[in-house]
C-alpha cells in the first residue's frame, strides 16, 4: 500500500439528493437573476443610492474570494516556501479557489448596472483608469480566475490520462507533463495576483474615508485585508478537508493541518496586533465606549484571537473537531471583518468627529432576492465542487484511516503537481 496516495476521482452517483437540492436552490436564484436583468437591480434588491452595493459586492465578491484565498495560502506554503507535504491539499484548495472566484466574478456581472461594458474591460487597456483600485481588482480577478482554472487543469489532464478512451488518454498523457513544466510560472502568478487584488479589496474603502467608521478606516486597510484573507483561506482549507473526510473518507492529515493552522495563528495574531497598534497610534481609542460600534470592534477582535489561541493549544491541535471549529471561527472572523468594513460601519452621511453616525435616513437590509441569489451562488459553488471532484482526480482518498507518516519529508513529486 502506498504511503503517499494519489488523488482520484470520487465517482459515484452524480445527481444524488444533495446535488439535486443544490441545483434546485441555484435554479430559484437563477429566476431572481433573470428578473434582475429584465426589471433592473432595484426590482430584486434593497440596494439604494445610500447603500449601493448591498450584500452582492461585500459577500458574493469580497467574502467568497476570501474563502477562495485558500488556493493562494496553500500555494504560498507549498510552492514558494517549498513545504511539499501540503501537496495533497493543493488540488482541493485550488478547486475551491477557482470556484469561489468564478462565483465572485459571476456575481459581479449580476451586480453591475451596465454589465455589457464590463466585457470591454480586458480589451481596452488604453481606457483603464490606473488610479482606480476597483479596476485593479477587476483586471486582477479576471486574470486570476483564468490562472486558477489553469491550476485545476492538472486534475483534468490526469483524469484524461486515466480514462478509458484512448484519444482522451493520449491527450492527457502528452499535455500533463508539458503543463507541469510551465507550472512554476503559473503558480508565481497565482501568488502575485491575489496579493495584489486581495489588498486592493481593502483599498477599495480607502476613498470612502468619511463614510467608514474611523476604527475601521486606516491606511492599513490593504494590509489588513491581505492578512485576513490568508487566514480565511487557511481556515477554509481545514474546514474543507475535514468535511471531505466525512463525506468521502478523504485523507485528513491532522498534523499537517495543525501545522498549517499554526501559521494561521501567527497571521491572526499579527492582524490583531497591527489593528490595535494602528488604532492606538492614531488616537482612535477615544471612539471606544458603550456603543454598538465598540461591540462590533471587540467581537471582531475576539473572533480573530479565539481561533489563534485555539490553534496554538496542543489539545486543539490533536483534536479534529476542535481544529475544525477553530478553523470555522477564523473564516468567520475574516468574513465579519469584511462585512463590517463594507456594510456594518458604513454610513452614507458619514461619521461625526465624536464617532456618531450622522443621521441619513437611508436604511438597508438584504432583500429576499439578494439573499436568495447569494445562497444560490454558494449552492452552485458546492455543486460545481462536487461535480469536478467526482469526475476528476482532485481529492486524495484513504482506503483505510491511516496515521500520518510525516517522517522524513519524502514527498510525491511531479505527477500529482
Amino acid at each position: 500500500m502506498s504511503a503517499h496516495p494519489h488523488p482520484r476521482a470520487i465517482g459515484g452517483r452524480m445527481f444524488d439528493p444533495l446535488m439535486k437540492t443544490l441545483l434546485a436552490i441555484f435554479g430559484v436564484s437563477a429566476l431572481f437573476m433573470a428578473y434582475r436583468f429584465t426589471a433592473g437591480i432595484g426590482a430584486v434588491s434593497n440596494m439604494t443610492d445610500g447603500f449601493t452595493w448591498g450584500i452582492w459586492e461585500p459577500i458574493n465578491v469580497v467574502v467568497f474570494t476570501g474563502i477562495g484565498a485558500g488556493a493562494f495560502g496553500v500555494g504560498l506554503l507549498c510552492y514558494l516556501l517549498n513545504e511539499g507535504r501540503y501537496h495533497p491539499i493543493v488540488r482541493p484548495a485550488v478547486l475551491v479557489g477557482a470556484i469561489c472566484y468564478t462565483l465572485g466574478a459571476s456575481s459581479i456581472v449580476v451586480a453591475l448596472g451596465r454589465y455589457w461594458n464590463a466585457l470591454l474591460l480586458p480589451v481596452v487597456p488604453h481606457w483603464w483608469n490606473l488610479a482606480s483600485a476597483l479596476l485593479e481588482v477587476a483586471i486582477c480577478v479576471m486574470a486570476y480566475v483564468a490562472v486558477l482554472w489553469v491550476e485545476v487543469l492538472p486534475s483534468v489532464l490526469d483524469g484524461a490520462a486515466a480514462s478509458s478512451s484512448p484519444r482522451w488518454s493520449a491527450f492527457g498523457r502528452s499535455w500533463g507533463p508539458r503543463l507541469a513544466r510551465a507550472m512554476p510560472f503559473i503558480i508565481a502568478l497565482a501568488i502575485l495576483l491575489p496579493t495584489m487584488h486581495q489588498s486592493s479589496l481593502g483599498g477599495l474603502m480607502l476613498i470612502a474615508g468619511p463614510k467608514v467608521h474611523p476604527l475601521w478606516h486606516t491606511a492599513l486597510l490593504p494590509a489588513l485585508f491581505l492578512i485576513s484573507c490568508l487566514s480565511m483561506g487557511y481556515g477554509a482549507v481545514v474546514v474543507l478537508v475535514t468535511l471531505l473526510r466525512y463525506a468521502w473518507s478523504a485523507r485528513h492529515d491532522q498534523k499537517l493541518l495543525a501545522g498549517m493552522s499554526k501559521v494561521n495563528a501567527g497571521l491572526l495574531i499579527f492582524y490583531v496586533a497591527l489593528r490595535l497598534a494602528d488604532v492606538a497610534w492614531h488616537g482612535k481609542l477615544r471612539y471606544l465606549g458603550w456603543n454598538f460600534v465598540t461591540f462590533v470592534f471587540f467581537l471582531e477582535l475576539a473572533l480573530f484571537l479565539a481561533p489563534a489561541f485555539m490553534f496554538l493549544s496542543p489539545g486543539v491541535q490533536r483534536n479534529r473537531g476542535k481544529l475544525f471549529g477553530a478553523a470555522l471561527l477564523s473564516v468567520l472572523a475574516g468574513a465579519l471583518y469584511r462585512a463590517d468594513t463594507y456594510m456594518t460601519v458604513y454610513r452614507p452621511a458619514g461619521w461625526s468627529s465624536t464617532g456618531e453616525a450622522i443621521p441619513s435616513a437611508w436604511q438597508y437590509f438584504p432583500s429576499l432576492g439578494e439573499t436568495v441569489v447569494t445562497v444560490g451562488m454558494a449552492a452552485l459553488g458546492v455543486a460545481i465542487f462536487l461535480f469536478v471532484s467526482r469526475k476528476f482526480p482532485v481529492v486524495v482518498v484513504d482506503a483505510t484511516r491511516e496515521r500520518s507518516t510525516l517522517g522524513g519529508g519524502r514527498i510525491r513529486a511531479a505527477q500529482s503537481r
Partner: protein
Amino acid sequence: MDNLSQIAALVANGVSRRDFIKVCSAAAAAVGLPAWAAEKMAENVGKKKPSVVWLHFQECTGCTESLLRTSHPDVGALILDLVSLDYHETLFAAAGKQFEQALETALHAGGFVLVVEGAIPLKDDGVFCVVGGKTAVQSLKECAERAAAVICIGSCASWGGLPASAPNPTQSTGAPEVLAKLGISRPTVTLPGCPANPYNLLGTVLQFATFGTLPALDEKGRPKFAYGRVIHEDCPRRPHFDAGRFALAFGDEGHRNGFCLYKLGCKGPQTHANCSLLDFCEVPGAWPIGIGHPCVGCTEEGIMFGKATQPGHADTIPIYTNLPVPPNVFPPIQPEHRVVSGPESSTLSGPIAVGLGSAVVGALVGAGVVATRKITTDSEKVQPKE
C-alpha cells in the same frame, strides 16, 4: 322724508325705483359688498347724498379721467344719484366766479368728503400752483379744516407722485404730509396709483355714503381691501415665475409667450395694489403686466420713478420670503428613504426578507456549531496516537 316718499320723489324726477335699485346693486357689487348693502345704500342715500369737494393740484387729471371710465356705477349715476359733487374743476360746466361760489357754499356747509388729486408744492410758499388766486397749500388748508374726511386719490396726492420725483424742484408733497405739517387731523384715506383704480375710490366713497365709515386702512392710510396684498401674490403670470419661465428681453420668445416679467424689472413683488384683480377701463387684461410691461410700482413711493425698469438696467428687487410660496413644503436635508420598513417595503424588501436573511445566517452558524461538536465527539472516540 320716509323711504316711500323719497322714492316717490325720485320717480317724479324721472328715475324709476327699479333703475335706482339697480344702480345701488351694481355699485355694491362693484366693490364687493353683499346684496343687503345695496338696499342699505338705497335707503341711506335716499336720505341725504354726501357732499364731495374735489380739489386738483399738481396732477395730470388722469385719476379723474379714469373715474370717467367707470360703468358700475358710471360717473353719471355717481354724481347725480349717489353723491353730491359740489366742486370739481374738470367736470363742472361752470367757470369763473360762479364756480368759486360753489366752493364757498360747500365749505360753508362743511361735513363734506374732500378728495384731493395731485401733489402740493411747498417751495417758495407754494407759489408753483395757484388756482383762483390761492396757493394749493391755502386751498387745502381751508377745505380740509371744514371737511369730514380726506381722500387722496392717485400717487401724486398720496405721496407726491411724478411731480415729487428727483430733483423735485417745487418740493411737491403728498397731501397727508402737508396736512400733518399744517396740523390738521382728519380721517385720511390714500389711494395711490398712477392712475388710481377708480373702483377703489368708488368703494371707499360708497362705503362712507352707506355706512358713514371708512374701510380698514394700513399704516399708510391705504384701504386694505385694495392695497393689502402685493401684485406678486395675485399676478396671473405667477405660475411662470414659480416655474422659472422669464422673459429676458422685450419681444423675445419668452415675452411673446407671456412669461413672467420679473427679470425685466417688474416691481410686482413689492407693489401693493389690486390691479390684477380689478381691470382698468373695464377691459380685461388692461393693466401693465397684462399687456406685457413690467409693473413699475406706481403705488409705491421710492419704487415708482425711483427704480429703473428698462431692459439692461432693470433693478430687480427683493422678494419677501414670508409670502406664501405654494407648495410651501420642502424636503428636509436628510429625507426619508424607507425601503426595509414602512409603506415602501414589499415582500421582496420587508419583514420576510429580514426573516430569511437572519434565518440563513442563523442556519450557517448553527450548522457550524453542530458539525464541530459532532466531529469533536467522533475524534475523541477514536484516540489518535499522534
